[in-house]
């Protein structure tokens, strides 16, 4: 059963600013389809009467107080920057 189309794959790729040729799109579509097929097993579980949940652990209302914690230094923050200019992360412009 086809769970994902080639158009879906192209759409998601575009949203992520990724480019694939037709051969790759075919391959990825097949692979994703298999993964989705596998995950679909979950829907076999009977969930009648079970409320939807957004979190796997039975924890709620976890807050932190509004207290300042030391930030990392500017130098450290920029260590992982692909490129740097004028104390900022330099990245290709996205329209």
């Amino acid at each position, binding site marked *: 059963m086809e769970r994902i189309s080639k158009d879906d794959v192209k*759409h998601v790729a575009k*949203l*992520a*600013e990724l480019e694939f040729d037709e051969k790759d799109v075919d391959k990825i579509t097949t692979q994703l389809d298999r993964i989705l097929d596998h995950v679909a097993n979950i829907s076999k579980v009977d969930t009648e009467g079970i409320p939807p949940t*957004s*979190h*796997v*652990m039975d*924890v*709620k*209302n*976890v*807050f*932190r*107080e*509004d*207290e*300042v*914690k*030391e*930030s*990392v*230094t*500017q130098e450290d*923050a*920029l260590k*992982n920057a692909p*490129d740097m*200019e*004028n*104390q*900022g*992360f*330099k*990245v*290709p*412009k*996205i329209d």
Partner: protein
Amino acid sequence: MALDIKNLKYEPVIGLEAHVELCTRTKMFCGCRLSFGEDKNIYTCPVCLGHPGSLPVINRKAVQYAIKIALALNCKIQDYTIFHRKNYFYPDMPKNYQISQYDLPLGVKGHLDVDMGDYTRRVGITRVHMEEDTGKLLHTGTTGRISESEASIVDFNRAGTPLIEVVTEPDIRSPEEAREYMIALRNLILFLDVSNCSMEEGSLRCDANVSVRKKGKEKIGTKTEIKNLNSFKFLQKGLEYEVERQIKLLESGSKVIQQTRHYDSKTAITKVLRSKEEAHDYRYFPEPDLVPIYMESKMVEDIKKTIPELPATKAKRFEKQYGLSIYDSNFLSNDRDLADYFEKCCSCYGNAKNIANWMMGDFSALLNKEKITIKESRVTPENLCRMLEIIDGGKINSKMAKSVFEEMFAAGKDPGKIIEERGLEQIADKSMLEAVIEEVLRDNPGPVEQFRQGKEKALSFLIGKVMAKTKGKANPRMVNEIITKKLS
């Protein structure tokens, strides 16, 4: 040249999305300090830089502030609320998603009444939700070298700042109403002490959804979304342009295309940013790194108690308690600092209408001229009251008061001192005036005789003599009375 809404065949239908940055000490999900206009990338950490393995934790104060805003907008606070990931590819968020809320927002179904002078527009509030602000992008222009493509410089100081989104129903019917709604929203939030709401600094921002329909029709037309409406003026101007653009399209038989447009304040027009086909598909899903919030009624009740008297209630009370007109009451109660100042004055001086007149007249004019707020002004409520008492006592007239007030405003001085220093005090001491008048009458028998024979002009001459002798400090009204009495 405001748009003449009443004479249009079409009716604008507008909904607004406002973003409010909260003034907590730290970010929404980490302990980094909030900042504005500082060096780039000095307040970041693994959480707000989106490093793998870091975990966000919700700032309690930010949730409390958000509830405060939702309550002030008459929203229902939801018992159960969660965060979602909003996925998009853009370098202003290092995680490639923004933590926001989706189908279970914090507050729903509220309203804000907007006073339009001759009518009130009730604007429905669809939702109030919490999210994190993005980083700031600075686009570098072309460097001149062909080999170098354009780039963006990213500053993540703002990334993660607690942000509240307030979404209205499409209840707004003119660009002017949109502007007044935003001003009312700003005033309301300023009362809550949870944001500094500065459109200039970007702590209050606004996008608009707008469409037009033939008057009397129910069905809403195709809408466009307008971005970059960064001041109250641009909000109105941008919407006026867009409404006219849409009407022209429909009148010429074309259609409005659903798209996102950008307002350019330099040219005062809106330009297309992206059309619906390219519209964002955010693929929201529940944020697995955060646990849900089950609202405790005690928490909500406690927050409710911290909400001060809000502008609408205050205006009604001012009207009743101080006998002010509706206009004056609204003027004074819309701004928290103005309202507090007014009431401080009322506690030390009895004539509220006098206070209101001065605050709305000379005082406001000077504040506007100097571009400062009443809080920053050097005139204390006590000094304003003293000045009003001095006027009432007849020591200075209203013309003199104007100049005394200007000096109070400029130098923050006590009015009594200014009057003394400048020798402005009117001579209203009757015995003192009588002595001077006796002298003038004795020295000018001619004019005295003329006045007795009915020449009114002679009286002016005699008053002028008294004024000259007292160097202009005599109270002319009293001089007139005394001379007339003495010679009749």
